[in-house]
């Protein structure tokens, strides 16, 4: 694929800080790392993210060519990530070994603890695992 389209759904999305943060992060990451366009192409489905203690939620609808960020939970997500703002903010800082999380990484260890304690919940697995892995590849800041 030769390009990508990342957009905010509407005015409400433009006023949602998580929408603007993650859409900007996705756009700048793809500009910096064009090799991640393959992962962007694999982003197909609807992903919801809910930062519970910040009371902010978003839905990202992807079809492999575009990603549209909307305020709130829209439709039925294929994958839902719910957690505290710290865990949601750290999703992009997870350390990787190839395409898999590096268990030695301090951010990953904190994430695993949050998963075990229920502070972080991921719904839709294992069916939406390809969507989660592609999202991780596109959004990573390392």
């Amino acid at each position: 694929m030769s390009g990508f389209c990342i957009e905010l759904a509407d005015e409400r999305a433009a006023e949602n800080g998580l929408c603007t943060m993650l859409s900007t992060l996705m756009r700048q990451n793809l500009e910096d790392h064009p090799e991640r366009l393959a992962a962007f192409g694999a982003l197909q489905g609807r992903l919801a993210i809910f930062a519970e203690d910040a009371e902010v939620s978003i839905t990202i609808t992807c079809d492999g060519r575009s990603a549209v960020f909307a305020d709130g939970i829209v439709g039925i997500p294929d994958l839902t990530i719910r957690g505290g703002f710290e865990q949601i903010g750290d999703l992009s800082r997870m350390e990787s070994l190839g395409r898999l999380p590096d268990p030695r990484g301090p951010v990953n260890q904190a994430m695993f603890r949050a998963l075990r304690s229920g502070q972080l919940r991921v719904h839709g697995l294992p069916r939406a695992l390809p969507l989660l892995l592609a999202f991780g590849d596109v959004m990573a800041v390392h």
Partner: protein
Amino acid sequence: MAIRFPSPEWTRAFADAVNANANYAQHGKDWTHGKVAYVITADERLGLASDMAMVLDLHGGRCRGAEYVPGPEAETKADFVIVADYPRWREVLSGAVDPTKAMMQNKLRLKKGHLPTIVKFVLASKSLVSSATAIDTDYPAL
């Protein structure tokens, strides 16, 4: 005696507080990405007829200098520009609200700069902001 926020005096005190913060020295040691500006939007109640900004010259875990300048000047001088109104800055700089949470809630907005770099240095950003809690500050009531 408490120092009024925002002001040139408070900006100098902030630079001193950053340099006294061991956490910032640790988490910001690899920061070589330029100056950071905190813009406070115009507020007649504070006597701010136009946007004002604190520009911090950060490098290698130190603050090499700080200026209190008009907002538009900060946008040309700084590589990263974060904008909020006075009540939001008071919440964040007093430690009442986490800066990541504030960004997700659209209380702080990144107007200029490379977001993946900010995310990568999130611990440095938090330490930078928390430096302000060490300053005896007079936050004017509105």
